[in-house]
């Protein structure tokens, strides 16, 4: 299945989906050295976001979160791509400075997708392809 989206940060990548209905504050929610979600209150607590297509409503919290995304990328534990319902500046800036493809403006139904399904993000065509 192919759905339309809006490009925020350019690139093309694929990986298994990791889906949450919770917003993410990269500063505090995610360990920048390992990519593991460390906030017990978060739906993804204990899971690793490395190499995944991370699907979440949007970012929140400190603007330092942008730099944390960059640090994840440099450690090789960043998501392969990210999909938001609506991107806000923290995640948008983090994705751009890190070279991680990010798209938004997809239907809310994408949050019902099962984690583990293979998803491809193509920002040139502005499409999300679900296996």
């Amino acid at each position, binding site marked *: 299945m192919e759905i339309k989206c809006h490009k*925020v940060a350019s690139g093309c990548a694929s990986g298994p989906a990791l889906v949450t209905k919770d917003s993410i504050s990269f500063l505090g929610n995610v360990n*920048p050295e390992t990519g593991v979600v460390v906030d017990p209150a978060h739906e993804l607590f204990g899971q690793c976001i490395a190499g995944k297509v991370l699907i979440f409503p949007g970012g929140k919290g400190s603007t330092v979160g942008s730099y944390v995304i960059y640090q994840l990328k440099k450690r090789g534990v960043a998501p392969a791509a990210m999909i938001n319902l609506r*991107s806000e*500046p923290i995640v*948008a800036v983090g994705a751009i*400075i890190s070279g991680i493809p990010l798209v938004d403006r997809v239907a809310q139904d994408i949050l019902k997708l099962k984690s583990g399904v293979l998803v491809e993000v193509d920002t040139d065509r502005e499409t999300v392809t679900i296996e």
Partner: protein
Amino acid sequence: MYLSREEEAVSRGERGETLRRMMEILVALGDIYGAERLIPVRSVQIAGVSFKNIGDAGLEWIMDLSGRVVVPSILNPAGMDLCRWQEMGIAEDFAAKQQATIEAYRRLGVTIDCTCTPYQLYDSLARQGDHLAWSESSAVSYANSVIGARTNREGGPSALAAALVGKTPLFGYHLDENRKPTHLVNVDANLKGSDFGALGFLVGKIVKDGVPLFRLQVKPVKDELKALGAAMAASGSVALYYVDGVTPSPPNDSEPGEKITLQMSDIDEVYEKYPGNDADIVALGCPHCSHEELQRIAELLEEGKVQKELWVCTARKIADSCPDLVKRIEECGARVFCDTCMVVSPASERYQKMMVNSGKALVYIPGLCGVRAGFGSLEECISVALGRN
């Protein structure tokens, strides 16, 4: 968003990878906020300087960048006095990383003035009607409100992007439609000095991200406007305000929808709720002290000896412009620290309670430093430091 031919070329990477990514940041933010196009900025003030705030993640990003800023660009305060950090009790490894951060900015062509009050240093950075990309919330408020320039509150990367590209997306406070007052605030009180910090502390909580229009019984001076805006940007997220008859006027025929009235008793309550006489440190200069404030502090200290730690924070250029005042203040046992402040330096964390005359510091010290905060006038702060309370 509409891009010019040259902006398109930058977007395609024809001017290098750093500029391509910087343009991508500006375009993404423009898209998120519905900007039609980019506009040139006169100057940039960059947040993300104190290593305490940006950490290894931020330092790595800045060190990895290449290129040169194309408009005058200066920095927010660092986590320490860049020369006298040892006196502040800063650890060696923190100091090394802070110096590396500063060097990384210097390499990009950024002027190394670390201050929250760029407008106290250089008139040319912001004039009425100029578009800017400034970060520090109190400087944003001062530029928009007192100078009549136009800037949104930029994050570290978006400010740096504006500095390297020389442009910012046209939205928010750059547009008249978002500069109309939302709240009319009548204050029936004879305010002076730190009362303006207390007023901002109260009004920011009420109006949040609104645009208050004040009707006051007094005409505040620049340092009082500085304190008012800084406090509202901390207790709320106010980026623009007006004072009837004092600041540049709002766009024509805009009448605020909501009305608030405050009395002197409301201001007095702030002092009563946050007493400072049991503090183990007194810290002044949030935002950074002006020349006039240093003068007043020197007069109040009048050759006394401080009984408690007393920090006076200012910009290095201001301290350098009045070495005699700095000497008078330090001869009383106080320390004049430059490039930094009590809010962004880890040096604050070893104290139990800090007395301040700033509504902004009153908001941030407990959360960012884990230190209790007391509030008083400049005169009360100096009395407490001298052990005369």
